[in-house]
């Protein structure tokens, strides 16, 4: 499977998916770390992909989103943004609204 098909399938499969540097427990970048913290604060289950583990994924997600930096958050198959946007959305309450449909009952 090529990278774009692989990415599309990951994004379809996981309703809240964060492409980041490092892992939830060991983020390797302050921007990734902040988005992990914000998602945890929202109490939403989420999956992560460590782009440092695979250069093809790292490059492929930048192309898919037309977005040159990491982290990148996908919710319900839609690209929400990077650290700045997720931070603004958390502050305004829009992040909670976007995540609400994917919260376990």
């Amino acid at each position, binding site marked *: 499977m090529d990278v774009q098909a692989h990415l599309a399938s990951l994004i379809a499969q996981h309703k809240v998916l964060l492409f980041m540097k490092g892992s939830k427990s060991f983020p390797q970048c302050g921007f990734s770390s*902040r988005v992990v913290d914000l998602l945890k604060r929202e109490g939403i289950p989420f999956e992560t992909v460590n782009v440092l583990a695979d250069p093809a994924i790292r490059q492929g997600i930048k192309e898919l989103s037309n977005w040159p930096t990491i982290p990148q958050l996908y919710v319900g198959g839609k690209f929400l943004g990077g650290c700045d946007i997720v931070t603004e959305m958390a502050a305004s309450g829009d992040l909670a609204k976007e995540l609400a449909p994917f919260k376990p009952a």
Partner: protein
Amino acid sequence: MSRRDRIERALTIAFEPSHLEVVNESHMHAVPKNAETHFKVVVVAEAFVGKGAVARHQLVYGALREELAAGLHAVAITSRDPAEWSARPEANVSPPCAS
């Protein structure tokens, strides 16, 4: 010309911003002294009126394409239209490095 100045020039040409800040925040990250890798930009421009956050940031990244290809690693972006900025003139605060 420093990268800070090149970024300032590129954003000025692209947006004719009514307010512009370009700050080298590389010292906040695990990079060599005097590095020019991590920047914060605040851009206030008419070009953002009616556009969502993703589209705005894509415009900023587009204006900085050459720098991104040449070693600019991270850009913390605050993008506001003039009305938003006059209502709340506050830039986003960048996170500290994790490593």
